[in-house]
């Protein structure tokens, strides 16, 4: 509803104010042009999706492994956390061209940049999630003679799931943006480079069409995480009902 209202207001403004379509095209014009250029958009969206998914998978695995190591070793955690925090303060604008310079126009630099922007939220979510384990459950397992690894596997890991999915939802929205940014800095194909070219050709309608594609992409990925959470945490529904 909110989106429809916004689009309508935009359409009316673009038509009635007499503003040039090369400055602000109406949404209808954007949609028309998107349809005309659908093959090009599709061809450029594919590499972006690939970079997003590969980069995200890499960051997920790294975050998971490191979170386990950090959960088991407090010194390691104290040593590594500041490094990761600093990695988050690096301006993407500066890093993206450098990574492209070092690793070329291929898939690798995109994967790295996506991983860079999504890794930290995932790691924090996991580490915090382990910490949120109910003390009594851990104590109970200890009284049963469970090893530290068993306590982690039986209690700490499942306790982290709600945090994990919260982090996942935040990360997945960063991931698409990260991929587009990496392509913007240099790529053979992808939504990022498509946006750059459209902008240089004074085609704001095609820029917006590509933005629309990336927004749809993000929404779809977001929807998938919600779906996966529902499948992975079937008890969550009852807990929420109970809380009401």
């Amino acid at each position: 509803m909110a989106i429809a209202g916004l689009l309508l207001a935009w359409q009316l403004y673009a038509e009635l104010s007499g503003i040039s379509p090369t400055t602000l095209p109406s949404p209808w014009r954007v949609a028309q042009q998107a349809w005309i250029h659908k093959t090009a958009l599709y061809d450029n969206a594919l590499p972006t999706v690939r970079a997003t998914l590969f980069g995200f998978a890499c960051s997920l695995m790294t975050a998971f492994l490191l979170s386990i190591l950090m959960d088991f070793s407090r010194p390691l955690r104290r040593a590594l956390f500041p490094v990761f925090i600093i990695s988050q303060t690096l301006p993407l604008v500066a890093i993206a061209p450098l990574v492209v310079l070092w690793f070329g126009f291929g898939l690798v630099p995109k994967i790295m940049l996506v991983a860079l922007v999504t890794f930290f939220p995932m790691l924090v979510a996991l580490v915090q999630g382990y910490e949120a384990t109910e003390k009594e459950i851990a104590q109970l397992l200890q009284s049963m003679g469970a090893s530290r690894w068993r306590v982690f596997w039986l209690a700490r890991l499942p306790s982290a799931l709600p945090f994990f999915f919260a982090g996942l939802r935040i990360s997945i929205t960063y991931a698409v943006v990260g991929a587009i940014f990496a392509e913007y800095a240099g790529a053979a194909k992808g939504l990022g480079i498509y946006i750059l070219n459209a902008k240089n050709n004074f085609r704001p309608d095609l820029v917006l069409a590509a933005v629309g594609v990336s927004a749809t992409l993000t929404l779809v990925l977001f929807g998938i995480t919600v779906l996966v959470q529902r499948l992975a945490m079937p008890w969550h529904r009852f807990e929420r009902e109970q809380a009401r």
Partner: protein
Amino acid sequence: MSGMRLQLEDIRKNFGETAVLDGVSLHVREGEFVSILGPSGAGKSTLFQLLTGAEHADGGAISVNGASVSGQNRDLAFMPQRDALMPWRSILDNVTLWLEVQGMTRKAARAKVTPLLGEFGLAGFENHYPAQLSGGMRQRAALLRTVVQERSLLLLDEPFGALDALTRTSMQRWLEVMWKRHRWTALLITHDVREAVFLSDRIYVLSARPARVLHEFQIPLPRPRDGSAKGLQEASAIEAAVLETLLIREQAGGPHP
């Protein structure tokens, strides 16, 4: 001594400068239901942590079945405050937890536990998640998870503290019936005087911190204690005496009267 399940001798525990346990001695015989009653913050939970091995005593000796205990593996089954059921496991898989920790496969553990569900009022709910169950049912599941361990002593840490008054009373009655039927040996920690009197053979009353045993009460009430008028009268006389011990010592000015 024969039939002695648990013996604590002169247990001392400090946290930094603060003395929490100041020479606590008590024992539990086979088949007995014993309660530890004390003001909140007296160190009851610390005592339990010593028993489960989560903490170590600074002095004194703990023995189970006549053997001094050390390390993790004790012959005790622990039921924590609140139920500590895992929200992500079904009731059945919560109950089998100990068997799984011991290395039994999930399938074998389920088969072993399933026949017990009926007696604990959980039949038909084995595939439910804890969040779908009432507080009383959750506690029954937590107790089943404890007794499945077939240890020589059940440690119950304020098991009914989080329940509403009515559910708590019905759970207490149910626990008494189950205890008699199964001849469990149980040590209960509580600050509910009525609960302690209703369930116990003996009660140890602890002082405020640093905790010592102030008094040991025998509860000679006949069982089952189903709440008949005569039973209730005798029970309230004992309750009054226990309460007096708790309150007077507190008024007398704390730890060293």
